[in-house]
């Protein structure tokens, strides 16, 4: 398909501002949110747009995150395009409603400025908040920089609302590192974004009136949503959500590609973003902004003749199993970096999932885990280098001594 890259202007935006700007352009009808560091700039900036009449969006300052997501869900089911944002404890408070939103097949889009969970309380970046929600039936996309945040929010509306998907989506940006760091962000013109996101379409469902009607609360076609489903009915709806996740693997790539043709920007295939992986012998898998640091180290190592590579997972849910297998099947030692912990679980969430995805390979690489950056702790290029060095040692010794490692932890 022909690529017509539109002219874009460059703005200095931090991750939060990039989110707000993307939402401003995406013809969102209702934003209901509650502030929490480090997402506050999103809601503050957006409320400025509202106060200045720059958007036609109902902005509701709810009294808690649980109500924020509920309000977005109910508005979405009434036919509105909705958005919210949160982090850490706020996302945790939404926990119940995350599952409900997915179960109701409401295409709510949410930005999460990844932040550590209490206790003790910590306002800085790590991914424990969203990792803890990986079972909730939400699409999860992790951005590496503010530019990608902007691009991903716009894409998220299309992905979530796609008739083969109809699942809510969260776009994740590392707290403070991305949310508060200013970068050059190229933004598309308003009309281009508006055209890209389009107008919401609704699937048809059978109602108690015996006819098919668009899935929304509309007095013209009354329907009952959120009923009690007994054991003989519940299971099938969950299977439907799983099918939607499967379809999302394709839809995410398609939307990503369509966007790339307009913006000139792409992130791997939309699911996975490999860096020097084709002939890599050792590789790191990670999500989010740390990938940027890793790329710097990969460049250095490559210059030294080391066959190092990086697999950045952009999409974590749905898990791109085939993509992971293909990307890593020729790598001999893989270090999966986790910016969260799963206590008592033999490593972090990403480690679990990557290792699990590779389990069926004929020739399996060594896969080890590096827990890093918890509570916003910084990870340096030197520390990343040490990880690659460990991988080289594993290959030399042909065995793993420490499957689970902690980066920068004071022993």
């Amino acid at each position, binding site marked *: 398909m022909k690529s017509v890259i539109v002219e874009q202007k460059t703005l200095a935006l931090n991750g939060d501002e990039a989110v707000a700007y993307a939402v401003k352009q995406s013809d969102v009808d209702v934003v209901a949110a509650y502030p929490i560091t480090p997402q506050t700039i999103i809601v503050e900036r957006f409320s400025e747009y509202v106060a200045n009449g720059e958007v*036609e969006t*109902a902005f509701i300052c709810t009294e808690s995150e649980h*109500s924020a997501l509920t309000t977005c869900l109910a*508005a979405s089911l009434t036919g509105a395009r909705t958005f919210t944002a949160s982090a850490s404890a706020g996302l945790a408070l939404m926990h119940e*409603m995350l599952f409900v939103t997915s179960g*109701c097949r409401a295409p709510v889009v949410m930005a999460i400025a990844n932040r550590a969970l209490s206790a003790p309380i910590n306002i800085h970046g790590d991914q424990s908040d969203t990792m803890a929600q990986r079972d909730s039936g939400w699409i999860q996309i992790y951005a590496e920089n503010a530019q990608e945040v902007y691009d991903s929010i716009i894409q998220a509306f299309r992905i979530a609302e796609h008739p083969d998907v109809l699942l809510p989506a969260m776009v994740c940006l590392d707290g403070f590192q991305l949310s508060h760091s200013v970068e050059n962000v190229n933004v598309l013109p308003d009309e281009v974004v508006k055209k890209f996101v389009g107008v919401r379409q609704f699937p048809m469902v059978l109602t108690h009136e015996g006819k098919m009607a668009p899935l929304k609360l509309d007095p013209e076609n*009354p329907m*009952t949503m959120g*009923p009690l489903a007994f054991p003989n009915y519940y299971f099938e709806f969950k299977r439907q959500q799983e099918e939607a996740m499967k379809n999302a693997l394709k839809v995410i790539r398609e939307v990503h590609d369509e966007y790339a043709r307009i913006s000139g920007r792409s992130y791997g295939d939309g699911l996975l973003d490999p860096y020097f992986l084709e002939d890599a012998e050792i590789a790191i898998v990670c999500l989010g902004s740390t990938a940027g640091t890793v790329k710097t180290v990969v460049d250095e190592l490559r210059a030294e003749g080391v066959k190092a590579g990086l697999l950045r997972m952009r999409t974590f849910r749905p898990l791109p199993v085939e993509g992971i297998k293909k990307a890593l099947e020729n790598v001999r030692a893989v270090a999966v970096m986790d910016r969260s912990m799963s206590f008592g679980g033999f490593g972090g969430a990403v480690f679990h999932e990557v290792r699990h995805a590779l389990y069926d390979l004929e020739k399996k690489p060594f896969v080890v885990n590096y827990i890093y950056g918890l509570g916003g702790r910084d990870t340096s290029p030197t520390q990343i280098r040490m990880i690659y060095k460990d991988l080289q040692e594993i290959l030399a010794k042909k065995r793993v001594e420490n499957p689970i490692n902690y980066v920068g932890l004071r022993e």
Partner: protein
Amino acid sequence: MQSEWKFTAKDIAEKPDLFMSGHRACAGCAPATVMRLIMKALRGPTIVTQATGCMEVVSTIYPYTSWTVPWLHTAFENAAANASGIEAAIKMLKKKGRIKYEHVDVIAIAGDGGTYDIGIQALSGAVERGHDFLFVLYDNEAYMNTGIQRSGGTPLGASTTTSPAGEVIPGKLEPKKPIADIMVAHEIPYVATASPYYWRDLIIKVRKGLEVEGPAFLHVFAPCPRGWRSDPSKSIELSRLAVETCVFPLWECINGEYQLSAPSKVIAMAPQKKKPVKEYLAVQGRFRHLFTPKNERLIEEIQRITDLRWQKLLKKCGMGREPLNSVF
């Protein structure tokens, strides 16, 4: 505030039930009667949202539904947040020319569980933000759907499964939370109480709540024969006794001004008509343990609190013995 709408019993009887038969409520369930009556008061396109609870469960067992209007349930504590989202969406979609309705009424319905306790945050937030919706509380005075556990709306002395009448503790020791007064303190345009025996009063109050622009709150008394251990045939009679004993007086608070509704005004004007609470308590198994020498002091306590709250209400309505200073 008067409603223009005038109707006869026949008018109500001829209106088709928008809350249909075939729901699985217990025999003699007053909340079910309340649902039917609420739906008789609709005036145009309406969307109903409900909290988890008896009425939600009995009326929406997949694939069956008793609701002929658009209806949403998401969780227990957030009926008011649902209503906020629906109301905001309708307003914005109308502004953008994406829906054709002149106006859509939004009603949030919740039991005492979803209002007094787990639901109070969302309710308080929604009314503070001034969303245009009616919140109806159907109060059967315990978490009935999960097995009769106590709520903030359970009255003093009642035996529930989590405040059982035992050897040492005779039921719930805390008085009923004055939820309607809490809503009055939010300074919303319309707050009222209603009881299904006084069906005309209830229906008019629902209509008024819909007509008001902004948040409206209606507290409806709804006896539960199962949880109250009362005769299923007596549920509506109990809703009358509660008013006649002043356990549940009927009133409205319109823009901050309290006024008694006719059934309670009758008693205020002729105090000899006020029945002793004992008459009300005696027909409910949940208070049976109070009729023992060890616990009868609680009946006196219930009478005392009832009288105290009644006198406070009379003062607010300008009918007390002392002059009324101010409401807020």
